[in-house]
């Protein structure tokens, strides 16, 4: 079944049956592999993309539910907030294996878009669903605060 999707500002047509998770459309059909498969049950956040600006688990979002929406993946994360988050992540050497970090960054961008100056507890609450098996959490917390400072400056 042909579906039209707007991803990273581009209208694209993909052939995928109803019930196909957006994650697999993005990865296997559109070859945008920055969005990761971690658990398939919305429990780790590695597959986080933005749908109309809202961080969303693409493994539990289906192709038929995203018509007429704007989807942004890590490859299209280019807002001022996203740039600040990237800079902070690099300054603080957050990444280790890196596999979860696309999802972490998409969530962090969502957080800072909603809340420009989050406290440590607010960061923990918002980022709770993004698992990192390398346990880079302390640096993620610090980097979100650093990105907040970059945006404020």
């Amino acid at each position, binding site marked *: 079944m042909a579906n039209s999707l707007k991803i990273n500002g581009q209208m694209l047509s993909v052939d995928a049956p109803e019930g196909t998770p957006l994650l697999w459309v993005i*990865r296997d059909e559109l070859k945008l592999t920055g969005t990761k498969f971690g658990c*398939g049950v919305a429990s780790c956040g590695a597959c986080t993309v933005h749908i109309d600006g809202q961080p969303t688990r693409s493994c539990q979002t289906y192709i038929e539910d995203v018509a007429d929406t704007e989807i942004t993946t890590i490859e299209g994360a280019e807002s001022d907030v996203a740039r600040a988050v990237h800079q902070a992540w690099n300054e603080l*050497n957050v990444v280790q294996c890196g596999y979860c970090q696309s999802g972490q960054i998409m969530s962090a961008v969502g957080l800072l878009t909603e809340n420009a100056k989050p406290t440590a507890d607010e960061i923990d609450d918002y980022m709770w669903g993004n698992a990192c098996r390398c*346990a880079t*959490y302390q640096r993620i917390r610090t980097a979100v605060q650093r990105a907040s400072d970059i945006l404020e400056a």
Partner: protein
Amino acid sequence: MNTQISRRNFLKSASALAGATLVVGFDAGKAVAQSAGTSDITPFVRVAADGKVTAIIKHFECGQGTATGLSALIAEELNMPLDAVEVDFAPANAALYGNTLFGGAQGTGGSTAMADSYLKYRTAGAAAREMLITAAAEVWGVSPSDVTLKDGVLSAGDTSAPIGDLVSAAAQLDVPANPTLKDPSEFTIIGNPDTNRRDNGPKTNGTATYGMDIQLDNQIVAVLLRGPRFGGTLVSHDDSAAQDVPGYIRSAALPPQAGAGVIVYAQNTWAAFQARDSITADWDFSAAENRSSDQMKADLMAAVNTDAEFDARGTPAETAAALKGAAQVIERDFFFPFLAHGTMEPMTCVVAPSETGVTVYDGCQFPTAVLGAFAAVLQIPQEAIEVKTIYAGGTFGRRATQTADYHVEAALAFAFAGGQQPVKLVWSREDDIKGGYYRPAYAHKVRVGLDDAGQIVGWDHRIAGKPIFKGGPFDAALVHGGVDNSSVEGTRDTPYALPGMYVGLTDGKTPVPVNWWRSVGHSHTAFVMETMMDMAAEAAGQDPVEYRLGYLAGGTPDQNRMANVLRVAAERSGWTSDMAEGHSRGVAVHKSFGTFVAEVVEISGNADDGVAIENVTCVVDCGVAVTPDVVVAQMESGIGYGIGHAMRNEITFSDGEVDQFNFPDYEPLRISDIKSIETHIVPSAEAPTGVGEPSTPPSAPALANAIARTGTRVTHLPMAENGVSFA
């Protein structure tokens, strides 16, 4: 580490790459020659005709920072900024890239990457520097001592040239047998706390490529329907319902000797998962693990309450005699469950046909085993196999197994598909959680005798669990007198001066496949050692830090280093200072993989009302810290890994079937679980040791010792299933 370097062992190769290119490295001599059969060259640094310098990294990058650390060694000796040195991963070739600490096999593990590479890479970089300087001196007609090399430019007086101009001349020279290494006082990169990771860019913008991301033309996806019980065999399967799944191709039963399962092929990952879910199968469980966890645990607990199969240190009779004279005996049993590694990227491997044989795309932890697996399954020579090592989405030990399990699956999937098109083997999270190769479950039982003054007079320590190395390729090296070292490491070799110590071992028997898991045996032995030391201190009415220091006062180098990190951790954590109301602290210290780590965990709350981890103070002595921020990151990572699993993770069985399925019931550490970690690296001029694992062993016992201060001593893990609630 012996790093005798001879001219024979160096390579200068202008022909390996088009044009004038200098490739320098060395092998470790005999060890490699003996294990790999050939002894030639090990090129670690490449200088291209355009002057571009590339560090060839002989270890995979799973997040531990090897690409950063090894390229830093090259940049240091070549006097270049680190970001001017490109990074490339080595091909699979043990003769060139073998790990001396693995007897010459090429692989990463046991926190050996920097320990094995420190002198090899510095020597290669220094040799390249000397050759470029000598070439410039000859071309310019000056003395080599008048030529300097800095930031990719050679200079002598008023003459200067970029190194690319001299590569051609340098490639004609003999490789220096003993190049002069930089004096550590001149280091600008090694030890610099401001050194950044090399992989920040691609890992934050989505461009880093992992095995899961490989997309080749005409590629199909393979997943495996595995038997629900380890040791079971496939009787039959029915894929008629899968025929309705769009994208499903076909399925094939694995040959019995290759395991129990059905390979399911589809055009894409989602179709493969859907098709697999619709296939039904019958299994024969007659030789399978059919027990439930209660029985498996009871069997291990019974084994530590009777005579051990093997004596690992001392004798039970001598220790029994010592305990007989004790004023008091403290006694405790311990249980550690099976644990999955839970790498963020599940196992995956892509195999594609090539002109010579096959190309394998893998976050490849153990190239020597992978080559062997593909050669054996596909019946082709190892030379016909090219392994492209790409980023690995975590390992914690999982990507290297002694059977190369997922590589064998990938090779079979490729062969059964006809061998003419690329096949990507994909594990789902459920495959990962239910798929075995776990940290084996272990039981311990310890009885410690104290005299009137609270001093230890005897230590009877029984251990039972399935050995990791016994019967495998490392058996001869790591199993002696029946004792698999990985079952007892951290106990019989403790730096503590313990009188009257007996360590007895009984092997656990189960078809459940087991594997090394971050810190291997230390993942359970440190918990037991540090709990018993804490209980002994408590029984003696002494401070836990001072009590431990009393057993580290013998003046051996290990004792001195272990005592030092413990003292510094006490200072940095304010061990003797007052705490906020409702807070408690616990301490643990352990040596593993040559590295000493002390940790103090400060908690609030208690086991009944909920424990919150307020802060972890970590002090590490890993010899020279080449890239200090990477060391700090590894300490943070290992602490999170150790504490997260100790809090709430276990793999359990009901009638042989794994109960857990995915992260919801194998809940990872979350960002809110540890509020703060402070790491301090003690200055050291000792040779660098590993950092990927050593912060894991002391983390859980330090937490348990803090919880013990609130009145609950937990010695069966996970804590959340054994009487400790977390806030």
